[in-house]
């Protein structure tokens, strides 16, 4: 497989990504041909992929800023919880945009605690993160008992309805309005033709440009912005040196503590924004205790999956978002059943790839998993809902098991740094 696909590696980045996406859609199209479903490439599937991917993306980008500055942030989950509470509170009281700002600040406060503990006092990053996760739950519960119980429709675990910032449908591409004139729906037209693969690509693309929340647009814009900020500016270079060789940065006169603080604060703020988006009408429209369901951790997984790079985080977020979004709409479990075959194909790909690199062990293991998945696919018609819920976590474990040697985290990530000790 790697031999035949080398031409892709030589393409410019945008074309390479488009090629990977096209291959992905092609596999999905083929697979759903075997099963009696069109869910895998439906407009609603890619739409929910984007919606469910955004909190993961924001959390992952948050983790990126923190870990590039050398601070491991397990506390993303807790900061996200703070974001959900403050996001709901701000949106209910002051309007949707202020809700986002409140979520940003709430998460940022969590980040501040993490920064004070890890950067200032040198507490172990994992320990501080775990404490923040547990503490955030308590803070949110306490605040709800103090505030939401006083609102109509609110309780100790719930808020009233939360307003959203609004949505945007691209004109021409997906039939959005321009000043009252309803434009044609080009992708929709292709999607309705029922042409093999072409209509599937059109449908998937249409989902990405239909009823997109403004938060989604912001989150997507943050991906190239983060790349630019971290790899093309002086600020980014300094932040990254704190994660690679803080002593070297110190020798160059970089205020390592300051940059670590900034990294962790941005991290918390982005996780908070993710939380504020979770309570917006696009996903739930209400604050509900326990609604983050570990998506901060999934964001962390997307970060690792993406090899600590913004585009990689986006890739991971969309993958996990796709699985989550599909599972939620797929109550019968038929579309997720087709996904099993996709998993098997991916495992086969890994096996071939490992074999071509001479790694018999990995090839054998992947091959075995592939066979097991295929057997499961062939002997069943649907998959249970719990499988859909854990699929992202399983994917992360499998990816880490096969590729953790190829991943490269920032060299000084998670290590204690004291000024003047080197």
């Amino acid at each position: 497989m790697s031999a035949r696909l080398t031409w892709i590696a030589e393409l410019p980045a945008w074309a390479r990504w488009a090629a990977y996406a096209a291959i992905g859609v092609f596999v999905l199209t083929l697979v759903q041909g075997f099963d009696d479903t069109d869910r895998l490439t439906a407009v609603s599937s890619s739409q929910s992929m984007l919606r469910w991917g955004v909190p993961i993306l924001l959390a992952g980008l948050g983790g990126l800023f923190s870990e590039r500055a050398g601070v491991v942030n397990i506390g993303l989950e807790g900061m996200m919880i703070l974001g959900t509470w403050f996001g709901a509170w701000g949106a209910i009281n002051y309007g949707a945009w202020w809700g986002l700002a409140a979520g940003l600040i709430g998460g940022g406060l969590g980040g501040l605690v993490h920064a004070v503990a890890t950067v200032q006092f040198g507490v172990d990053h994992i320990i501080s993160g775990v404490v923040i996760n547990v503490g955030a739950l308590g803070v949110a519960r306490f605040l709800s008992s103090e505030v939401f119980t006083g609102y109509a429709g609110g309780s100790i675990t719930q808020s009233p309805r939360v307003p959203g910032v609004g949505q945007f449908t691209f004109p021409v591409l997906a039939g959005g309005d321009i000043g009252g004139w309803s434009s044609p729906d080009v992708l929709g037209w292709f999607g309705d033709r029922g042409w093999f693969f072409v209509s599937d690509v059109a449908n998937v693309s249409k989902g990405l440009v239909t009823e997109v929340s403004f938060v989604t647009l912001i989150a997507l814009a943050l991906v190239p912005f983060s790349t630019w900020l971290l790899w093309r500016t002086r600020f980014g270079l300094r932040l990254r040196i704190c994660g690679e060789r803080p002593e070297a940065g110190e020798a160059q006169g970089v205020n390592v503590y300051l940059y670590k603080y900034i990294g962790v604060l941005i991290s918390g703020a982005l996780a908070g924004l993710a939380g504020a988006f979770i309570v917006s009408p696009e996903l739930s429209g209400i604050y509900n205790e326990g609604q983050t369901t570990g998506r901060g951790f999934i964001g962390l997984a997307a970060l690792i999956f993406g090899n600590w790079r913004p585009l990689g985080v986006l890739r991971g977020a969309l993958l996990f978002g796709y699985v989550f979004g599909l599972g939620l709409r797929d109550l019968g479990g038929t579309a997720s059943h087709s996904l099993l075959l996709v998993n098997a194909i991916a495992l086969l790909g890994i096996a071939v790839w490992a074999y071509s690199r001479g790694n018999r062990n990995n090839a054998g293991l992947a091959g075995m998993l592939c066979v097991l998945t295929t057997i499961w696919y062939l002997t069943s018609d649907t998959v249970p809902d719990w499988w859909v819920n854990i699929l992202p976590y399983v994917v992360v474990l499998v990816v880490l098991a096969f590729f953790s040697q190829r991943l490269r985290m920032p060299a000084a990530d998670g290590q204690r740094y004291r000024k003047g000790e080197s």
Partner: protein
Amino acid sequence: MSTGRRVILGLAAPVAALVFAVVTSSIVLLISGSDPLAAYGDMFSHAAKLETLVDLLNRATPLYLAGVAVAIGFRMNLFNIGVEGQYLLAFLVAAHVGSLVSLPAVLHISLILIVAMSVGGAYAGVAGVLKVTRGVNEVISTIMLNAIAITGISAWLIKEWQAEGGVRAGTTTRTGTTPIDDSGLLPGLNGVVEVFTREIGQGKELTGVFVIAVVVGVWYHVFINRTVLGFDLRATGINPFAARVGGVPPGRMIVLAMVLSGAVAGLIGMTELMQTGFYPANPIQSLGFAGIAAALLGRNNPFGIAVAALIFAFLDVSSGVLQFTGAAPREIVVIMQGVIILAAVIAYEIMRRVRERDEARHASAAPAEVPA
């Protein structure tokens, strides 16, 4: 450094953390319009009752086991965040296996405990093997394994194994696995306690798992401090390279530490299982994370973890009374627990630096006494 100073430094950190937590929570309570003194008074007078003390020990028992489970990993520089998933899975499987058989009490109870420890150990071992053979960080893998165990495997198995028509628990019917026969339930300790005190009322029952927790604590102390294996484990945790030179295979130590940690974690759910006899659809959760807090506050020391578990159990149990007296929202104790643990780890870090500075001063002062 004198012994007195060392003891004071050792105690200063947790005491400072507790004081800081009390002050912070008082401020929070004042801001929210409650009277902190009335709240604390209610909590203490409630906890002084015999029945509340039984509750407190029942709560501290699983907390202590969770703390020891996490501490075994810590001693090896491993962060077993997966205690949560390990104990829930072990709880469920042990409940099911226990309900399938009917044996003499000793065998039945032993079987249930062994199943629980094996399942917990095996599930934790997955993370250990992934770390050794694949280089997967155990923090990430145990987080993923937690999610897989809780939202996946448990959700699936409880559906497969739940008793039809529900389980009768007192006056209500709950969803859960088929109840275990009485022969599989560890008897309570009320009889022992009542020898020294008055009769325990309100249907409270001190769990027999308390004895197991004490045994685990003693075992942990002996194993870590008095056995060759425990020494190897600690040595590998402190310096894996030096340990390897000394003939200790680090990979095997990692897997062993994870398995032992998971085996102890498997016992956490036994407190509830031995009381009710079944695995409910909504078992008591977050004990794994509370265990991390107990291990941190107790500094991985068997006695320290016990004190920490008692403190957290006190906060959990005595906060219940706040709902009735209305002195303060009971959620304040969750904040208190968070603040305690964060303040404690910061305080320990500061103490470590003070001690290092002391040692450096001591070392630089010492050579002056030696004639050149």
